[in-house]
Structure formats: structure tokens, C-alpha cells
């Protein structure tokens, strides 16, 4: 199969199967129907994975292509085509996306075994994957925009999937709206790029010569969209709340789709960003703030999934930071390793939640002997997250730090101060990451069990309260949930070593790995962070190390209270405006219309009354009118 066929098929297969899946009749009970839905979902992801493999082996060259696309619309002088360009980097990202999607599909069959709405769920996961692949593969900016927004809608549907969680609908709406606010900028940015280049085709846009002002404006606008999708400050607030979605969906959103899309789009447009110091400096500030906010907020969470969610915010900050200091290769490398270890962590978290029936770390503990597979998954995932050598995260994080340190010497597009900012934030946060990873690990798997008493857990997993029985002792998940963990653990552990493989390195245009003295500093911080967490845990048995944060704890747990700020600055003004608009509409605009109607009726009534005058008065009126008319006639003549 040639690239011309495999490229377009890559997003089309999951999208089409997703649409077919949505058209399946709903309802539970029928096992065949369920099996069909699962089959369609898994097939979509598996075929896409094979196609991605095919494309990794033989990616398209950037000179290929425009003519192969199918014209969707000619609007004005813009021609929108369904055209794809899967170069080496895109192929690797597609591989990561499809691998994670396949794991999520298989895992979900068991995780949602008692959910009557499994069929639309599986179809939406397919759509989600297809939309992400559209962003990855598409070489038309409008096509990317389509994939970009369809992902937003899918995330909305999937986050709001759980009918038993009262917070799920609100979290879903928040995810869609916050990203949509960013997308205002994304649409406008694309509009500026496209209108100036008179083409929607990506290579044409990249080759176009923009004036610096236009370019910076467009790129900053696009950054707004990137901040929304990739959960960057100040639009990151939706991501922790999105934990209301089923755990496999969290894996999908955090590892493969959605949050990776923003980083990928900047990567894809990097030739333009490389021309704009202002845009890169903005990105650097955004990234630094995000890295620190994410890492610090993760320290105080009690919800297992929320720790992971905040860690994603922080890790995506590393990627945007790498982009900001002019190293798209390091960003992409971290994206790939992060996809592996974050998917692993979330699926393993699902296994923990499945076993103990709660999200809360304060009700876990002592799980290690009961769940060895999950334990080791967590060990590898958290190690990679913290950057422990030789796990994958170590290598990619080293790359980011090296790139930032290199850029502090100047000579890059981004100003040196921005590089210093990224470097400092990234370095500090290595220690913080090690601290919260260690805390999570110790609180969940070591020490005595803090499972709730004989009356059962307060929060049950699964979708049918009546049927679910808490297992007597926590145990590893059944095979369809266990195998995805084992499979994902391999890249999470070893993907970093791929940096030594020349083929991979040239595909990503990655620098040669070199371990110099510079590694010592992050390793020292890592050891300090992990050691402090361990010491706090060990010194006071049973106490949460986060208590050491003191009064900062609740503040950090609430994510720096940025939700309140957002509520005050955006939600309330919008509500007030809506109130005024409605009042204005009824009191002024419509009242004017109704007033005209009433006024006309009144005037009619008055005239009617005038015609009912008694005879003498009427005679006077007639004479007066005659006089008046006569006067006018005389005056006019």
C-alpha cells in the first residue's frame, strides 16, 4: 500500500468506523450487540495502528503531495482539500496515538463491562482517535481545524459519559467551553494565515512570506488555541475537572489525543514560529508558568487521578517549553515518551480504582502484595514521569533541559531570558515531580491499608450500584485490562533508549544523546525530592506527606484557585452581559415594536372618538377644516 493511500486512510478508518458505531441501536442486555460495538472499536484502532506502522517504515517526503487530495470546497479563492502529509515525525506521533487508542479500546471492554451505554462510548473513542489522526496527518489547515474541533466535541461527550457522577456534565461542558474559548484564537489565527497566503495548504503557508506583524499576531492567536487544547496556563483549568470521565478516557485525552494536539500543531507550524521571537517568548512564559503550576498543584491532591492530571499539565509544559527554546525535536520526543508512560499510569490507575473502589489516596495503601502487575506498572510509569534513569522520561526530559540550557547562551530565536525562565522552571519542577510521584507511590502501594470499614466503600466503580460487589481483597485486573498495562510498560521503560537508534533520531531530527556533568543537577534535585517525600512518609507513619505543605496545601489542591479567578473574570461578566442583553431586548427593542403597535391602536381609538362628536361640535370642526383648506388653497395660489 502506497503512502498516498495509507495517509488518507489513517484518519478515515477510525472516523468511518466511529460513525458506523454511533449508528448502532442503543440499549443494553444484548451481548451480541455489545460484542459488535467492541469489535468495531477495536478494529478501527487496530487498522489505524497497522497503517501507522506502514507509514513509519516508509513516510512521505515533504515534497509529496498537494495533487493527491480530494477537493472538499472552493470558497472564494481558497481551495480546501482532503490531503494528508505523513512525514516521519507525523508517522511516529500517529503510531503513539493509535497504540494508545488500541490499548484504551481493549481495556475499556472490561472496564465498562456493566455499562449499558458502552456502544456509543466505543464509537466516540474511535471518532476521537480519528479526529486526532486528522490533525496529525492533515496537510490542509482547515482539515486540521476540523480534527481539532471534533476532538473537543468528543472529549465533551466522553467526559460527560458517566451518568452517576453529578459533576460529570459540568466537567464536560467546562472542557468544551474552555477549549472553545482558546479556539476563538485558533480560528482567527488560521484565518489570518490563510487569508494572507491565499492557500490553506500547509507547505504553502509555511513557505509564504508574511510580514512580521501579521505573523506574530497570527501565531499568538494560534497559541490561544494551543493553550486551550494542551491545557496550558491560563486555559488549563478544564483538565483536572475532566477526571470525571471514565479512566480510559483520561488515558486517551492525556496521552494520545487532545493535549498532545496543541504541542503537535506548534511543532507542525514551527518553521513559522522560528521567525517570531515574540511568539516564542510568549510560549516560553506560558510554558514556565504551566510547568510550575502543574507540578505544585499535583503535590497536594488526594485524588489519584487528579495527581496524574496535574502532572500532565506540568509535563505538557515541558513540551511547549522545548518548543519555545527552539527545539521541536525535544518536544516531540517528550511527547512520545509521555504518551507511553502517561497512558500506562492512567490505565494502571484504572486498575487500582477498579480494585479498591475509590479514587482517593487517603483510602488506599498497602496494595503492593495484592496487585503486582499494577504495582510494577506504577513503578515504571512514575519513574519515567519523575525522570529516573534509564526509564524513557529521563532521556526526553534531559533533552528538554539540555535544549533550554543551550538556548540560554543566546543565538536562538527565543530571547535568552525566556530560555532561562524555561530552564529554571523545568529544573525546579524535576524535584517537585519526584516529590509527588514518590508520595503517590508510597501512599497507594505501601504501608497499611486504609480501605474503608465493613460498610463498603463510599464510591463504587462500575455503572450499576446494585450489582457491583467489592472484591474481598484487591487484586490485579482481568487479562483484557492487564495486557494493555504490560504492553505499555515496555515503551514507557525503554523508549528513551530509542534516542540511541540512528533511524529514530534522524526522523525526529534529535541531537545525539550525551550525558555530561549537566545531568548531575537534575539528578540531585530528583533525589532530594524523592528523599524528602520518603522521609516525611516514614517519619510519621500513616500521615500524608502533603500535610507538610501546611496552609499552602489547600491552596495548591485547589490549583492556585484559578477556577475562582476564571469564574470572576469570565463567567460572571458573561452572565451579566446576558442579563443586560435579554433585558434590553424585551424592554427596549421589543418594547419599541409593541409600543408602535399600541400607539397606532391608540391613535386609531382617538380618531374614532373624534368621529363621535356631537352635531354642533362636528359642524364647527367641518367649518374649521373648510376654512383651513381654503386658507391653504389661497396661500398656495
Amino acid at each position, binding site marked *: 500500500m502506497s503512502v498516498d493511500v495509507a495517509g488518507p486512510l489513517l484518519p478515515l478508518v477510525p472516523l468511518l468506523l466511529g*460513525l458506523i458505531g*454511533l449508528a448502532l441501536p*442503543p*440499549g443494553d442486555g444484548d451481548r451480541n450487540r455489545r460484542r459488535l460495538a467492541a469489535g468495531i472499536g477495536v478494529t478501527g484502532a487496530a487498522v489505524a495502528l497497522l497503517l501507522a506502522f506502514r507509514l513509519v517504515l516508509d513516510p512521505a517526503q515533504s515534497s509529496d503531495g498537494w495533487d493527491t487530495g480530494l*477537493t*472538499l*470546497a*472552493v*470558497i*472564494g*479563492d*481558497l481551495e480546501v482539500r482532503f490531503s494528508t502529509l505523513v512525514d516521519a515525525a507525523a508517522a511516529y506521533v500517529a503510531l503513539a496515538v493509535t497504540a494508545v487508542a488500541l490499548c484504551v479500546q481493549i481495556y475499556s471492554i472490561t472496564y465498562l463491562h456493566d455499562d449499558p*451505554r458502552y456502544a*456509543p462510548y466505543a464509537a466516540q473513542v474511535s471518532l476521537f482517535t480519528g479526529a486526532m489522526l486528522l490533525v496529525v496527518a492533515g496537510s490542509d489547515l*482547515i482539515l486540521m*481545524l*476540523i*480534527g*481539532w*474541533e*471534533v476532538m473537543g*466535541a468528543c472529549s*465533551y*461527550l466522553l467526559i*460527560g459519559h458517566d*451518568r452517576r457522577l*453529578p459533576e*460529570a*456534565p*459540568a466537567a464536560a*461542558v467546562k472542557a*468544551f*467551553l474552555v477549549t*472553545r*474559548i482558546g*479556539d*476563538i484564537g485558533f*480560528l*482567527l489565527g*488560521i*484565518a*489570518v494565515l*490563510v*487569508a494572507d497566503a491565499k492557500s490553506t495548504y500547509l507547505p504553502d503557508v509555511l513557505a509564504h512570506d508574511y510580514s512580521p506583524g501579521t505573523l506574530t499576531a497570527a501565531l499568538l492567536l494560534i497559541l490561544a488555541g494551543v493553550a486551550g487544547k494542551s491545557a496550558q496556563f491560563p486555559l488549563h483549568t478544564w483538565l483536572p475537572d475532566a477526571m470525571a470521565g471514565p479512566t480510559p478516557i483520561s488515558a486517551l485525552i492525556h496521552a494520545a489525543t487532545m493535549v498532545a494536539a496543541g504541542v503537535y500543531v506548534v511543532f507542525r507550524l514551527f518553521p513559522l514560529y522560528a521567525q517570531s521571537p515574540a511568539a516564542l517568548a510568549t510560549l516560553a512564559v506560558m510554558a514556565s508558568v504551566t510547568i510550575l503550576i502543574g507540578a505544585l498543584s499535583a503535590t497536594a491532591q488526594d485524588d489519584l487521578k487528579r495527581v496524574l492530571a496535574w502532572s500532565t499539565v506540568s509535563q505538557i509544559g515541558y513540551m511547549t517549553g522545548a518548543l519555545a527554546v527552539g527545539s521541536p525535536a525535544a518536544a516531540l520526543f517528550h511527547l512520545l515518551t509521555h504518551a507511553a508512560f502517561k497512558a500506562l499510569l492512567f490505565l494502571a490507575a484504572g486498575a487500582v480504582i477498579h480494585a479498591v473502589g475509590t479514587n482517593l489516596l487517603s483510602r488506599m495503601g498497602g496494595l503492593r502484595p495484592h496487585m503486582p502487575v499494577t504495582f510494577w506498572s506504577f513503578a515504571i510509569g512514575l519513574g519515567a514521569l519523575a525522570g529516573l534513569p534509564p526509564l524513557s522520561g529521563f532521556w526526553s526530559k534531559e533533552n528538554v533541559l539540555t535544549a533550554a540550557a543551550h538556548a540560554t547562551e543566546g543565538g536562538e530565536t527565543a530571547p535568552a531570558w525566556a530560555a532561562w525562565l524555561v530552564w529554571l522552571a523545568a529544573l525546579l519542577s524535576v524535584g517537585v515531580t519526584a516529590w509527588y510521584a514518590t508520595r503517590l507511590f508510597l501512599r497507594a502501594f505501601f504501608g497499611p491499608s486504609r480501605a474503608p470499614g465493613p460498610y463498603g466503600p463510599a464510591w463504587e466503580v462500575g455503572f450499576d450500584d446494585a450489582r457491583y460487589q467489592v472484591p474481598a481483597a484487591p487484586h490485579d485486573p482481568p487479562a483484557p485490562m492487564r495486557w494493555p498495562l504490560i504492553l505499555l510498560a515496555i515503551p514507557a521503560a525503554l523508549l528513551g533508549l530509542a534516542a540511541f537508534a540512528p533511524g529514530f533520531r534522524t526522523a525526529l531530527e534529535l541531537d545525539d544523546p550525551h550525558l555530561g556533568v549537566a545531568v548531575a543537577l537534575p539528578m540531585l534535585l530528583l533525589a532530594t525530592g524523592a528523599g524528602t517525600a520518603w522521609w516525611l512518609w516514614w517519619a510519621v507513619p500513616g500521615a500524608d506527606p502533603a500535610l507538610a505543605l501546611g496552609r499552602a496545601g489547600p491552596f495548591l489542591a485547589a490549583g492556585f484557585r484559578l477556577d475562582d479567578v476564571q469564574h470572576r473574570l469570565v463567567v460572571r461578566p*458573561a*452572565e451579566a*452581559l*446576558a*442579563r*443586560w*442583553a*435579554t433585558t*434590553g*431586548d424585551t424592554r427596549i*427593542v*421589543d418594547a419599541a*415594536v409593541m409600543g408602535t*403597535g399600541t400607539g397606532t391602536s391608540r391613535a386609531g381609538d382617538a380618531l374614532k372618538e373624534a368621529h363621535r362628536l356631537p352635531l354642533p361640535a362636528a359642524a364647527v370642526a367641518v367649518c374649521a377644516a373648510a376654512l383651513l383648506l381654503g386658507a391653504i388653497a389661497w396661500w398656495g395660489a
Partner: protein
Amino acid sequence: MYRDYVEPAWSAPQLLLIALLLVPALGAIVVALAPAARSRLVAGAFATVTFVLSVLPILMRPNDFGWFAYGPADRPPLVPWIDLDLPWVPALGLEFHLGVDGVSYPLIVLTGLLTALCCAYTKKKGLAALLLVLEVGVLGTFLALDLILFFLFFEVVLLPMYAVIAGWGGPNRRAAARKFVLYTLAGSVLLLLGVLLVVTKAGTGDLILLTGSPHLDRTTQYAAFALLAVAFAVKAPLWPLHTWLPDAHTEAPTVGSVILAGVLLKMGTYGLIRVGLGVAPDGAAWASPVLGILAVIAIIVGALICLRQTELKRLIAYSSVGHMGFVLLGIATLSVAGIQAALLGNIAHGLITGLLFFLAGTIKDRAGTGSLNQLSGLRETAPRLAALLGFAAIASLGLPGLAGFWGEAFAVIAAVDRGGPFWLTLAAVAAIGGALTAAYFLRLLRRVTHGPATPEVRSLSPAITGTEWLAWSPLILLTLAIGVAPALVLSDTAQPLTTLLGIRP
């Protein structure tokens, strides 16, 4: 003479145009006379035949349309696919001049489709007959290539719609119907003035002759465009001339709302493109900033008002104000891209809002209430209905890949393309309006589909009948199809639009 009169030897395409008007007219009479038990079948048959006829003009489309189809300067540059020109009342300069081209064709098909679906959907005899009468007026408006004829058809629509609302509407139907008819009549007076002004000054009402050729001096164009624009703005409706719409929609029966939103509003935007731009291009250029500002206000205000609505149908009605704002913004840019976006927006709004009104009407009828405070948890009791509502709402908020996206995104892109701080600001504000649109539709979904089921929702029957599937599935499929391939609508619009805008190749 500018034209050779070819005596009655009519070609088949010309007969098709006549049939497009005659079949529904005949259908209306037959339905009115037929026994009530058979009315649905008869009305459905006539409407389906009309729909099939409305699709046929695509076969008559000349193949080699292109820039080089332009002849010497004395030939009229606007070349309809089918052209039928008969003298009617020569004393008034009135000709029976009909035609189809790429601009009107999608709207004609949309009219045929929605009327057929509505006729198949409703069981009420009188309503079905009135729908067919409405169809005659709407099709005539889209077909007319003579200004006075255009005005006549434009007016034919008014009274049947009044009767539909007043006869089969909700509890406040009389007031709503009266407001609708008086408001739009006031607009029609302005339209009549504008039409007469153009016809007397130019000496002809032939739209082909008037389009793209300078018959009118600048001042007349300004006056004519002002009159026409206000008249069409009432119909479209453009803020602040929209207040008849929510009342009419809330009270109208389901099919009435579908036709009103799906087709009747398009007469305003179509008129603005075909008549306003075509006849008075200088006037349009003069007024376009004002039009742009009003369009953007409509987008924002419409969305903000929607955020506060508590009645299902009223919310959807106000959403039309915002959507038509995007359409008018596209028109206001006076660029081919902008007007193509407007045409796409027209069709998309017709399909999606039609579907939304079908669904809202069904939910309201079954639950016995349209209040958002009493509707909740629809996905618990009626998952299919909730899924369809979700689809329609997500389509309506302009999700890419569905029909609504192209019109809105390209209206914004066209405004950016126009350049300059003024249009960039308009584009930015319109894009913000897009986010607000998402906000109110998600609020609607959260209220209606999520959460625990209320007693009203628990009591409604979840099944979707065959008739309902029949009426809804074409809308769903077309929303998807146009979302994926907007070329379906735009295939042959570039050439007539360049002519309309007076851009010489």
C-alpha cells in the same frame, strides 16, 4: 429589442419551472378537497413530486461554465441554467420571468425537501394544504428573475404563514401571528417601495438586465439598497428587527417552525444577495459596514439572549438570530468567499434548525412542557431522542465536519480577508460569538439530556416512530454530507456571484 420572442415552443426545462409552481399549487387544492383520512398521503405525494422536480434542474446545468463562457459585452452576464420569460402585464412592466442558477438551486432543493418532510410529518389536512401554498410562494421567490414578480411571490407567503400560526399554534398564537404578519407586512411595504423605485428608474424589472449593469445612478442605488435592505432584514431577521421571530416560533406548530426557520428566513438573505447586491452594488458597498456591525451585534446579542432562555423553542428561535448574523456578516463582506459562506450558512441553518425544531416540537409535545426547568435527564429515559438532540445541537454550534461549520468559519475568514482594523474587529467579535453559541447549546444539552430524569421526562414515550425517522433522517444525513463536502452546495456559485458583485474577470 433586447430579446427575440420565441413563441410557445417551450422546452422541457422551461416546463419544469412551470411544473415546480403548478404541482404544489394543484396539490394544495387537491389536499383541501380530499377526505381528511387521505390528506397525509396526498399531500406527501404532491410534495414529494415537487421535491423530485426541484432536484432536476441540476441535469440542465451547462457543463462548460467558466470564465470563458462570457460572451461579448452586450450579452447579459448572468446566465441561468434554465430561463423562462413570458410577458404578463406589459403595462406594469411585469414579466413572468423564472430561472434557476447556482445561487438559487440549493435553496430550491432545500424548500422542496423541507416541505416534503413536513407534509409527510403532519397529520392535519388544512396545515398540509397551507404548507403547499407556502411552497408555491417560496419557490416562486427563489425562481423569480423579475423584480415585481419577486415581490408578488414574496407576499404570497405571508398569509398562509399567518394562518399556520394562528390556526394550529400554541396558547398565545393569535398575538404571535398578528405580530408576525404586521411586522413582516411593514417590511413588505419598504420592499414594494424599493422595487418600484428600481423599476421606475431603470425602466425594467428584469433581474438579469439589472444585475451587474449600471442602470441606476448612485443616489438611487443608495435609496434603493436602504429600502431593500431594511425589508430583507426584517425577514432574515437582522438585529434589531428580529422580535417577531421568537414569538412566532414559540407559538407556531412544529412544521410551521421548521418551514419558518428552514425556508422563510432564507427569503430575506436570498433577496439581499439576489436583489440587494445585484441591483444596487454601489448601495451595498456604501451600506456594508453598517450591515457588518448589525450582523455582529446580532451574533453576540442572539447568543447572550439564548444563555438566559428557559423555553426550548424560544431558545432555538433566538439561536436563529445569531446564525443569520453569520450569514449576513458573510454577505456584508461583499466578497465571493463571504457570500458563498452565506449561501452555505443558509442551507446549513435550514437543515440543522429544521431538525432542531422537529426534535424540540416532539419533546415538547410528548413531555407536555418546553420549559428547561422541567426537562432533565432525557438520556436516561429516551437515549435515542437525546442523542439526536445532542447531534443537532452540536451541529448547530458549528462543529467542523458538520454543515454549520463552513458558513460560520468562512464568514470569519472572509471578514479577515477583507482586511483593515474594522473588519478584523468584526471577525474577532464574530468568532467570540461562536464560542458563546457553544456555551448556550451546551447549557441546553446539560439541562435537557443530562442529570436525573424529571417526572415530565419520565412519562414521555421514548420510541421514535417510522414517520419521525422518515422526516429526520434526510436532515441528519445531509448535515453530515454537506459538512464533509460543502462543494455539494457551492459547486456552481462562483460565477454568478462574481457577476452579482460586479467583479470583472
